[in-house]
Structures are given as structure tokens and as C-alpha cells.
């Protein structure tokens, strides 16, 4: 190898051909933010249409395309790649590795994503429009009744699945083989732990999603009848296969968020994380349980009572390890020397709102009650409390927390706090009323609604516009920080931050830990 301490190449080829984990992490983060804006724009269209009852702005068919693409892009384009980006940036720095284990595959996992989402978005301009069967694309809506663009949709799911699997393999290979000497598994920062477990979930279930869309492809084009009753198949089979992937998927989204929060809360509490070991075991338990609860998404399809009971009890069991986690976070803050910088605010917001989302999840898990809640706005409110206030809030916290380390410049704290409060208030105005309209019987995925839901829907829409606008502030703050933020050179950036990533210079050099660091026991668990 020639000069090891060269900087990045210049120009576009730096980004196209890079194998540097920091470059690839950066690209993942920017790409996911672009998708976040796109998916958010679709959400704004949805909320604008729902601002008043009656059909105002768009056609019902287009409305269905918007809900579908909003869900798909937020899940697969925004949240998942953002956490992969974070993993790329942080895992090598947290375990004392010079880079990811398989850097060239890393490049490929990223670069197949943008064309894939371009393909998915291009279906909007195709004859018959984009897929419109919801992000869960149940057959036969997604097969017999789908627009021709469904084939492009299937292909894009295949490719983004491939990207996720490659990314996960890389993360597992890195964590298992590249830890610095002395960095034992039980000394790894919790973010690394949650990602390791998430990566195993991804390797296990993304192929199942690929299988589901492959069966759709065969039903649509090759005359099979996996999901067609006329040929001896069964549409309910689709739901089983989809949710066998789909339930682990929701933990794939939230576990890295748990990891982020477990890094940030101790830093601003100036205490070590309470119950590190129990955090690891709780994460593993949640991952295991995620495989045996899928049918709680489909209580109403006509399962035997024994099945309903099994899935109900198994689902409720997940509240135990999740409760352990929430308890540990709260206990970490207990009698800590708390300060409330933006990352901490987002973590506390996460803690409160995610817990609300967890409780509504518990309500939904009760099979007899779920017959009332099923496919109502209550479900929409529930999963936005865990997806947005869970994953997106923790992601915002992570950006504010590590951005100064990455670029050596401090963000504007006032603007950060403003972003938090507008987000927090806007989010709650948007989604809290949806609990009420859901319980009162408003179904999800409809472009029009009965008059009695009008006030709460208008409230929701106003909240959504506020929340959406706050993300522009976030974007501005991040760009302003990178371009002209106040320089920081302190290695630790944050007084209470612990971990290997805070031992390297600020801003983080292009290459780090080319010689493995000595693990100081004080840094364990960070």
C-alpha cells in the first residue's frame, strides 16, 4: 500500500468509487434525508387533501399512490438507510476499526439505492400510475388489481432488499472480526450491539420480503396462483409471508434508534448507562420475539382462537424487554447531572412519545379490542408515534450529537432547540388527534371522511405542515453548521461523552484507527 494517510480523492469520482466508511456513511445520510423530504412531500399532499372533508385537490387513485409511496419511501428510503449511514460512520469508530470489513461491497450497497428509488418514483409517471396498494401491498390489490408499474415496484423491492442484506452482512462482518483487541462483545457500545442484532434480523427477513414479491411477480406474469383463490392459492398467505418479514422489520427500524438513545442519554446525564447487560439481553429478546408475533397484524383474517391467543400473549410479552429498556433510560437520568442540549431534548422527546406509542401498541395487541381498532386511524397514530417519534427523533438526536465530531463545527444550539420544540409540538398536533378519530371509527387510507372527523383532521393537517416545516429548519441548521459553524477542536465535544469515537481528533480524520487503539476499561460501555 502506498501512502496510507492520503486524503479523499477530488471531484465526483471520490464519491462514486469511495470505499471509505465515512464517505459512504455521509452519502447514506444525505440520500436518506433527500428521501425523507420526498416522502414528507407526499405526506403533505395527503394531509392537504384531508384538510377538509370531500375531495379537494387530488383524485382518490392518486391519493392511494401517495399513501403507498409515502410509506415505502419513509421505511425503505429514509429511516433504514439513515441508520445504515449512522452505522457506517460510527461502528468502525466505536469498536476501534480502521474501516468496514468489506469496503467495496459497502460502496455497492449504497450506490444501488439511488437508481432503485429513482425507478420506484418513476412509476408515478407510468400508465396507470404508481403502486397504490399501501406500503403493505396486500394481494390481490397488488397483483390482480395492480397497475402495470407493479413490475417495476417488485424489481425495486428486490434491489433495495439486496442493498440492505449487503449492508447488514458488512456490519456483522465488521463487528465480529474488526473489534480492537480488548473490545469484547460485552464492552461494545450499545449502538453497536443494537445494530449487530438488527443486522441479523435483516439478513433473516429481507429474503422473506424478496420471496413475497417474487411470488407476486410469478402470479402477475407467469401464471402461478400463490395468492389467487381461482387457482387454488390464497390471498391470506400473502399477509402471513409479508408480516413474517414485516414485524421484524419494525424492530429493524427501532432497535438502532434504541442504540442511539442509549449513547446520548448517559452523555447528558453524566452517568454511565444503567443496566448495560440487561439492555443487551432486552434487545436480543425483542429480536427473538419479533419472529413469533407477526399475525397480530391480521387478527381479523379469521384465525383459530388458539392462534389469536398465542399471538396476543406473545405480543404482550414484548412489552417486558421494552419496559426494561425504558426503565433503564429513565434510571440513567435519575440523579444525573442533566443538561438539555438539543440531542438530549430529542432523546427525552423520544422517551415520552415512544412510550405512548408502545402503550397504544399494547392496546392494539389485545385481539378482541383490535377488531375495533384494525385499519383505523388509531393504527396510523400508533405507528407514527413509534416510527417518527421513535426512529426519526432519535435520528435527529444522533445528527446533532455526532455532527460536531464529524465536521469539527458546532451547530446553532438555539436553532436546534427551536427545531426540537417545533417538531415536538407539530408532531403531537398531527398525530395525537388521530387516536381520537381512529377510535371513533375513521378508517385509514381514505381520501375523504365523514363530517364528524373534520375538526380533528384539520388539526392533524396543520400539525403536519408545522412538523414538515421544522425539517427545513433542520436542513438549514445542518448545512449552516457544515459550511460556517463555530469550529470545535475538543476531542470529546460533549463533556459527558464516552467512547472510542471521542478519543480521535475533531473533526474526525479521513482515516482513523489504522493502528488499533488500546481499550481503556473506563471507555467500556460508553
Amino acid at each position, binding site marked *: 500500500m502506498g501512502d496510507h494517510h492520503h486524503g479523499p480523492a477530488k471531484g465526483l469520482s471520490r464519491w462514486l468509487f469511495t470505499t471509505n466508511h465515512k464517505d459512504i456513511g455521509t452519502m447514506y445520510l444525505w440520500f436518506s434525508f433527500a428521501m425523507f423530504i420526498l416522502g414528507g412531500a407526499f405526506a403533505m399532499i395527503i394531509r392537504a387533501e384531508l384538510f377538509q372533508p370531500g375531495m379537494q385537490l387530488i383524485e382518490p387513485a392518486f391519493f392511494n399512490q401517495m399513501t403507498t409511496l409515502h410509506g415505502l419511501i419513509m421505511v425503505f428510503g429514509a429511516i433504514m438507510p439513515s441508520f445504515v449511514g449512522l452505522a457506517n460512520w460510527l461502528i468502525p469508530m466505536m469498536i476501534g476499526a480502521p474501516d468496514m*470489513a*468489506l469496503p467495496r*461491497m459497502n460502496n455497492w450497497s449504497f450506490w444501488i439505492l439511488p437508481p432503485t428509488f429513482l425507478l420506484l418514483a418513476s412509476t408515478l409517471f407510468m400508465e396507470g400510475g404508481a403502486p397504490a396498494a399501501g406500503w403493505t401491498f396486500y394481494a390481490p390489490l397488488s397483483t390482480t388489481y395492480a397497475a402495470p408499474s407493479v413490475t417495476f415496484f417488485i424489481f425495486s423491492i428486490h434491489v433495495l432488499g439486496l442493498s440492505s*442484506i449487503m449492508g*447488514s*452482512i*458488512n456490519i*456483522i*462482518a*465488521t463487528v*465480529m*472480526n*474488526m473489534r480492537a483487541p480488548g473490545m469484547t462483545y460485552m464492552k461494545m457500545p450499545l449502538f453497536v450491539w443494537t445494530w449487530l442484532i438488527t443486522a441479523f434480523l435483516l*439478513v*433473516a*427477513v*429481507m*429474503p*422473506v420480503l*424478496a*420471496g*413475497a414479491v*417474487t*411470488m407476486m411477480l410469478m402470479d402477475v406474469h407467469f*401464471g402461478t*396462483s*400463490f395468492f389467487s*383463490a*381461482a*387457482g*387454488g392459492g*390464497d390471498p*391470506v*398467505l400473502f399477509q*402471513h*409471508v409479508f408480516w*413474517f418479514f414485516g414485524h421484524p422489520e419494525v424492530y429493524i427500524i427501532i432497535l438502532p434508534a434504541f442504540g442511539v438513545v442509549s449513547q446520548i442519554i448517559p452523555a447528558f446525564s453524566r452517568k454511565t448507562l444503567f443496566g448495560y447487560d440487561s439492555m443487551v439481553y432486552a434487545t436480543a429478546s425483542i429480536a427473538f420475539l419479533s419472529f413469533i408475533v407477526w399475525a397480530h397484524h391480521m387478527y381479523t383474517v*379469521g*384465525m*383459530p382462537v388458539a392462534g389469536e391467543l398465542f399471538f396476543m400473549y406473545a405480543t404482550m410479552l414484548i412489552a417486558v424487554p421494552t419496559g426494561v429498556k425504558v426503565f433503564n433510560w429513565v434510571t440513567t437520568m435519575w440523579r444525573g447531572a442533566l443538561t438539555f442540549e438539543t440531542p438530549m431534548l430529542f432523546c427525552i422527546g423520544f422517551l415520552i412519545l415512544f412510550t405512548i406509542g408502545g402503550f397504544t401498541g399494547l392496546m392494539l395487541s389485545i385481539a378482541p379490542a383490535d377488531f375495533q381498532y384494525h385499519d383505523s386511524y388509531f393504527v396510523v397514530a400508533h405507528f407514527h408515534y413509534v416510527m417518527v417519534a421513535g426512529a426519526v427523533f432519535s435520528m435527529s438526536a444522533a445528527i446533532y450529537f455526532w455532527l460536531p465530531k464529524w465536521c469539527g463545527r458546532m451547530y446553532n444550539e438555539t436553532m436546534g432547540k427551536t427545531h426540537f420544540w417545533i417538531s415536538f409540538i407539530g408532531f403531537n398536533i398531527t398525530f395525537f388527534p388521530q387516536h381520537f378519530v381512529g377510535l371513533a371509527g375513521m378508517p385509514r387510507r381514505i381520501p375523504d371522511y365523514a363530517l364528524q372527523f373534520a375538526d380533528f383532521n384539520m388539526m392533524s393537517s396543520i400539525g403536519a405542515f408545522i412538523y414538515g416545516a421544522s425539517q427545513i429548519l433542520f436542513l438549514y441548521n445542518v448545512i449552516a453548521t457544515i459550511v460556517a459553524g463555530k469550529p470545535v477542536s475538543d476531542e470529546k465535544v460533549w463533556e459527558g461523552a464516552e467512547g472510542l469515537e471521542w478519543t480521535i481528533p475533531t473533526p474526525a480524520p479521513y482515516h482513523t484507527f489504522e493502528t488499533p487503539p488500546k481499550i481503556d476499561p473506563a471507555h467500556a460501555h460508553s
Partner: protein
Amino acid sequence: MIRLSANPAIDTAIKLVTVAVAMFAFVFVVMVPLYNVLCDALGINGKTSGERYTAVQARVDESRVVTVQFVATNNEGMPWEFVPGVNMMKVNPGAVNDTVFYAHNPLPKAMVAQAIPSISPARAAQYFHKTECFCFNQQPLDGRSEANMPLQFIVDQDLPRDIHTITLSYTIFDVTDMAGGAVATR
């Protein structure tokens, strides 16, 4: 632990790729067949168990009478007239019963139909045996013609005593376009 490569990272990667490929195969070779097996075993979706029933030594239980109701539904876009010959039969468990479903193709072109059965309550599915059914095969009908399609069934003597009524429902699908392909139903 078996090492598949001298490079430990490559070794891990190969093993994980194997897991991913295995999970893809799992969908087709485990999940799909397992779903059908479970549906058969539990009578879900009214899938009556097993293949064409070969009558066991039939002992007619004249001590009780079970009502069997027939329902016929057309799937979306299916133009045939499709009705049960009788709406309801009172049968003794163990007895062999015959009935017909009437079908009429009003269009000038020949068409092929496939009827898909469902039984309610699901618990009764495994006690409802069809020895002959038009649903075992695709049913072709010439244009503007009609047919009485036969159904022969036995309600099992072991039918739980609290079940007094069984509803047998057929949905008829237009499979003219897929006809000729192997269609396995029961």
C-alpha cells in the same frame, strides 16, 4: 467452526449469504406448504381435509339431523348464473347425499370456471367429506349452455354434537384464461 475463507471477514460474509439464500428458499419450500398443511389441519378457509374422500364403512346415524346450507357466489366479473339446486338439505351423519349446482353461461363464447369451496363453521370442515364434486375440476361450458354440476357428500358420524348447521359456500371464478394449467383444489 468451519472456515470458508482465510480472510475472516469473507468467511463471515459467505456464511451470512448462505443464511440469506436459505431464508429465501424457506419462503417457498417451508412457508407456502406449511400454510396449506395448517389450513387443512385446522379447517381454515374451509379447506376440507385431504384428497377425494373414499368412504369408510358408512354407519348412518339416524339419531340426529344436520342442516347443510348451500351458498353460491360469483367472483367479480364472472357472468355465469350459478345457483344451488336446493338451498338446504337435512341429512343424517354417515349418509351419502347427492345434490347439484346449476350453472348457465349466458355469453356466446365457451368459458371455463373453477369453483372454490369454503365451509363454515371452520371446525366442521374436517367432518365434511366430498366424494364427488364439480369443484375437483375446472368446469367448461359452451356458449349459451347450461349444466347441473353434481356434488356428493357425507357428513361424518363423528361431527361434534353441538354443530347442527353447516354452510357450504362456493365462489365461482372465470379461469378461461388460465385453463389448461394444473389447478389443484379440493
